[in-house]
């Protein structure tokens, strides 16, 4: 067969295919979480600009952030960001296979080795580490911000 790629059969996909099933829609919402990632960066840069400009501008930023529509956007952004974090962390073991080195497996007790098929670190452990890191980072950032100006 030497048919060119352009002549190969392609099944027509409806333009808004992701509205057809709940699972497709959830997938699309997960992908759209990236828009709120960009918003969060923009918001952070606005905050840092205001901080760099001094007290008057910082207060102006705080007043702007307290407008109802800005709070609403940020509440929505927070929901999407948490959605991103949860889906990202839960997918991590599928994207990354972690194996215990053979030399270490040889030293480990049989009861543990039996629980690690082919030396693979179980998925739930990778997910758990991600959530621990999330709590850790959040606590450090929140702690630094709160103590910095109190």
């Amino acid at each position: 067969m030497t048919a060119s790629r352009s002549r190969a059969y392609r099944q027509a996909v409806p333009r808004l295919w992701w509205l057809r099933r709940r699972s497709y829609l959830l997938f699309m919402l997960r992908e759209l979480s990236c828009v709120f990632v960009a918003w969060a960066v923009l918001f952070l840069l606005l905050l840092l600009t205001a901080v760099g400009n001094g007290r008057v501008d910082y207060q102006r930023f705080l007043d702007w952030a307290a407008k109802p529509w800005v709070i609403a956007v940020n509440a929505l952004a927070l929901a999407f960001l948490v959605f991103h974090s949860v889906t990202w962390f839960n997918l991590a073991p599928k994207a990354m296979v972690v194996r215990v080195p053979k030399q270490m497996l040889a030293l480990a007790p049989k009861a543990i080795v039996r629980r690690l098929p082919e030396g693979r670190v179980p998925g739930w452990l990778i997910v758990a580490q991600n959530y621990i890191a999330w709590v850790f980072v959040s606590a450090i950032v929140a702690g630094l911000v709160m103590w910095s100006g109190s």
Partner: protein
Amino acid sequence: MRRRARPIEPFLWLLFSAGGVLAALFLPVVVLLFGVVYPLGVIGPPTDPGLHALTAHALTRVVIFGVCVLSLFHWAHRFRFTVLHGLQIGRLDRVVSVFCYGAALAGSLAALVVLMRI
């Protein structure tokens, strides 16, 4: 979509992945504090001198810069494919890519300027 060999593609996936991790770890707490908790008055926001001192620290600035740049490229990569697949406009890949990665690059430069001015 075109299947031309593009050696830059794996690198873009790497940025997407690294940005996904940093965004997942750092951004929720930032938006929670400055977007929801402080505006609603649950607790008072940090005062200017303290926050300024924190953000002006070299280590803080490096971390924030990394989070900003990689998160922006995470957005660019994911948004590119969301638009291409979601609207079934794969043939416009080039235009969409220039917009997405161009915006991420511009945002990264903006972040650099903002962080150097603090």
